[in-house]
């Protein structure tokens, strides 16, 4: 029986009776089979708000049979493995009524692995048992020293680490006079120090610890030995500094209007809204384009439309992208509108903005009913730009 994430498959099943919630099993009467590769088969029976779990060889008659491996099973129960991912990758297979299996989630409280608190004595023993493993030969090059550890109290003990020729040997007791000896009155303080909960200086200054012999060597011990990591915990990697740069690039742009767009923009300068018309189908194009998009013939006739019209569509924009000409972002929400200017019909609408304080006051065109009557608000200084009209507002 292997443990996954520190938990055995058996632990999950064995704790089912205590995790059972009768209220979650109301009205359910079914059996569920679990076939965990290399671990065995279990059968869960739920009836009349009661449950029974046990190993079983025969899983026939179960509403569902779940087939998976131990790691996936434990992982899903601990929330360390994504159930949907395991299911779609085929690691977690369900035969039978998937909906019935989903109901078992409500029947049981989540499995919480028991927290095993280590005693001070266990910590001390583990810390010294792992000392040789934590030795870093590279940091001890050329060293020929002995380090004495004198840990006081009932849970304490005495050890000597012999560091020579890039190797470290730990012996019990204090051997002769070590190069440096660390003496701590209480084993609990030593555990706290090794777990990084207190620092050496505060222990020393409080007189709870003492260093005899070559004190500078004591300072190097933090390098010679890798930090102690309690069993079951992963060594913490120091947080890496990640670089994020926030920049704004500025790109110069030039837009050549051409004769058609130029005529339209120059018209705005004189408070005129000009559309051009297809000689064949007579439809208006606003803003104008050189060629009729439908007939593909040159649209040469010009028609002045508006400037007032009826609102067709009002789109309220909550997420604005930057203005391509300035990089500035408009205040949201704003109304992006389609206006059917006087003289235009059908879909020949003109796209512009609505006065910000009126975006919730206007009425859109709905079937036969015309939308709100709007008029353009012209800019004082007009340069031949779409912004020569500041926005449209209610014509009241």
């Amino acid at each position, binding site marked *: 029986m292997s443990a996954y994430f520190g938990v055995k498959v058996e632990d999950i099943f064995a704790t089912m009776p205590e995790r059972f919630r009768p209220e979650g099993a109301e009205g359910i009467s079914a059996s569920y089979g679990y076939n965990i590769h290399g671990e065995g088969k279990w059968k869960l029976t739920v009836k009349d708000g009661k449950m029974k779990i046990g190993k079983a060889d025969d899983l026939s008659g179960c509403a569902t049979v779940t087939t998976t491996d131990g790691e996936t099973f434990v992982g899903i129960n601990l929330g360390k493995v994504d159930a949907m991912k395991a299911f779609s990758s085929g690691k977690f297979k369900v035969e039978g009524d998937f909906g019935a299996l989903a109901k078992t989630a409500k029947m049981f409280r989540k499995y919480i692995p028991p927290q095993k608190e280590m005693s001070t004595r266990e910590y001390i023993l583990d810390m010294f048992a792992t000392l040789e493993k934590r030795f870093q030969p590279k940091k001890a090059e050329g060293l020929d020293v002995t380090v004495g550890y004198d840990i006081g109290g009932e849970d304490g003990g005495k050890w000597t680490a012999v560091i020579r020729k890039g190797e470290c040997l730990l012996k019990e007791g204090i051997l002769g006079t070590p190069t440096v000896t660390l003496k701590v009155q209480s084993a609990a303080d030593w555990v706290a120090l090794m777990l990084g909960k207190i620092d050496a200086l505060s222990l020393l200054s409080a007189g709870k610890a003492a260093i005899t012999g070559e004190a500078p060597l004591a300072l190097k011990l933090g390098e010679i030995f890798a930090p102690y990591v309690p069993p079951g915990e992963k060594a913490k990697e120091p947080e890496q500094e990640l670089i994020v740069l926030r920049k704004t690039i*500025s790109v110069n742009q030039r837009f050549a*209007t051409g004769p058609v767009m*130029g*005529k339209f923009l120059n018209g705005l300068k004189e408070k005129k809204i000009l559309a051009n018309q297809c000689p064949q189908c007579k439809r208006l194009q606003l803003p104008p384009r050189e060629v009729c998009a439908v007939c593909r013939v040159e649209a040469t006739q010009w028609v002045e439309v508006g400037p007032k019209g009826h609102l067709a569509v009002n789109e309220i924009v909550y997420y604005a992208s930057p203005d391509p000409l*300035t990089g500035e972002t408009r205040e949201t929400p704003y109304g992006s509108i389609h206006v059917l200017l006087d003289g235009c019909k059908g879909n020949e609408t003109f796209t512009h903005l609505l006065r910000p304080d009126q975006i919730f006051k206007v009425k859109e065109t709905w079937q036969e009913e015309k939308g709100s009557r709007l008029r353009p608000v012209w800019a004082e200084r007009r340069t031949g730009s779409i912004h020569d009209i500041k926005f449209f507002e209610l014509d009241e």
Partner: protein
Amino acid sequence: MRQRMDTADCFVVEGKLALPYTYFAGRVGSKFITTIRDQKKILGVRCNHCNKVFVPPRQTCAICMEELQNNWVELQNTGEVTNFTVVRYNDKHLPRTAPFILAMIKLGGADTPMVHILEGILPEKVRIGLKVKPVFAQETTNTILDIDHFEPI
């Protein structure tokens, strides 16, 4: 089609597009930059499969597709010019005023060159094989310009 000669209404709109963006250097790129900034050392990564040392460092070997991110190698702070170009126009995104030299520099211990600014030599005097060393920036910006430039030894 009739040639439209009437250009009376044509004009040009000048604009300036500002693009705010966020650049994340990633774990590998961040370590490369912070090591240059804090330790004045240039790091590369070695591919254990093809044994090539890449600089600037990358997460994956382009040839073998091996994971490289933990195979850090400290490079020598000297190298040689494997190629170069002289930038002869000015633009606001360029790091220097023209003319200046952009060189491909292969540092000792690396198998790939890195591009950087070469100063302290006239453009007409630069030759492939020139021995150069980095000059680290006084004021750091968390960019590759934490190496201010390279100069001849």
